[in-house]
């Protein structure tokens, strides 16, 4: 078995117009900047993919990564918990102009909806958002005297995430808090694409250390020295 893909361009080649795309990371931590930029390169060259629904905790920062996708007009809808950042201009302008949709989801509910999709659980109940405007229209049920809101699973056609080590079987480790949503997204997407700092031979990751087992991963691609969104933004970089 060999899930390695030689180039970033090949790794994202079949992400199609209208796809639901999970993008890993929390802010810049664990964000697959190089995979996102490979997708932007394809859009610039071919006009595709567009009309994407993007699922991420945030909605881009600065003029790179998801913010650059939004700037380029690739994104139809964001599903996120916190569409604000140090420089949220890209999303804010399009949102206030009515050019992008927003589904606002509490952060823990977002994580659990993604996990549920990966685990084959179509709905679950959570106390989060009960009695608030984010629970409007959702079924409510009482358990042991307390009210809970029904939430649905959240699936995707593709996930692009960043890991640390990967092997040809798709086993993945993450670096520090860069783990965040990434293991969940690998579970929930029909096709999961992971950029890692180093591809090692099978056996190169101790089985005890595997965080995402390869069954949840379809493709891995090596990006030896991945950039950090925060560093790029501090340098004022623009990707568009």
């Amino acid at each position: 078995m060999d899930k390695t893909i030689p180039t970033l361009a090949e790794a994202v080649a079949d992400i199609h117009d209208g796809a639901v795309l999970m993008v890993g990371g929390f802010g810049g931590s664990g964000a697959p900047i190089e995979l996102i930029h490979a997708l932007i390169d394809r859009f610039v060259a071919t006009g595709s993919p567009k009309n994407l629904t993007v699922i991420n905790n945030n909605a881009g920062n600065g003029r790179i990564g998801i913010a650059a996708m939004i700037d380029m007009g690739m994104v139809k809808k964001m599903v996120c918990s916190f569409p604000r950042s140090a420089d949220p201009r890209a999303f804010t302008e399009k949102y206030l102009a009515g050019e992008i949709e927003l589904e606002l989801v509490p952060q823990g509910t977002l994580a659990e909806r993604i996990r549920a999709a990966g685990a084959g659980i179509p709905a679950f109940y959570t106390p989060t958002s009960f009695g608030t405007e984010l629970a409007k229209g959702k079924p409510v049920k009482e358990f042991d005297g307390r009210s809970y809101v029904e939430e649905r699973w959240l699936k995707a056609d593709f996930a692009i995430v960043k890991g640390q080590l990967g092997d040809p079987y798709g086993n993945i480790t993450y670096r520090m808090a860069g783990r965040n949503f990434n293991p969940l997204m690998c579970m929930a997407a029909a096709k999961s694409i992971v950029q890692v700092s180093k591809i090692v031979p099978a056996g190169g990751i101790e089985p005890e250390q595997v965080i995402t087992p390869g069954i949840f991963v379809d493709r891995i691609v090596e990006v030896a020295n991945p950039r950090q969104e925060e560093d790029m933004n501090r340098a004022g970089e623009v990707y568009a």
Partner: protein
Amino acid sequence: MTEKLSNAQIAWRAAQDIEDGAYVNLGIGFPEIVAKFQPEGREAIFHTENGVLGFGEAPPKGQEDWDLINAGKKAITLKPGAAFFHHADSFAMVRGGHLDVAILGAYQVAQNGDLANWSVGAKGVPAVGGAMDLVHGAKRVAVITDHVTKDGKPKLLEACTLPLTGVACVTRVYTSLCVVDIENGRFVLREKLPSISLEDLQAVTGATLVIDGPVADLIVPELD
């Protein structure tokens, strides 16, 4: 003009109630400074939504590692015994009742414990983050806040007028003037600045302050 506590002093007071060995989540912004005022000899373990338990102070400038941040996207450091985990586990710690204390900011708190701290209404881009999750699950949900808004309106009310973050979730409020517990749908006054009379405190509070047991002087050291 009445004397009032600074934000640092409110945070100091809240920190005195954190027990040794407590697992604590501090909301982003103002609540983050509570960590500075841990009483000598007590150890709290701080949780952040993006998957870290046991983090410490910010690193020196220039030594940030941007894979090691807190929920406010600020660079942090690790203490010995820290742990990383993914987002679903992180919020299992929250909703599963494993946190001892969550300390959050507030726009408004109601006497039944309703909290409004995520949205000031329809304008702009709405953002909720982990606030609606954090108010459910922690054994104690405390709020730290100025007693009134910038234009002098009460923040402690009979009912919130802003969009709710959670229903009947707050258990204690530390303000710039007093400490109140929320018990049986009432604000029960526990401590107040000695320099403010009960009448004057009531006048800047939007719901009845109930006296049920002793009211101690709120004494906080000079800070900064």
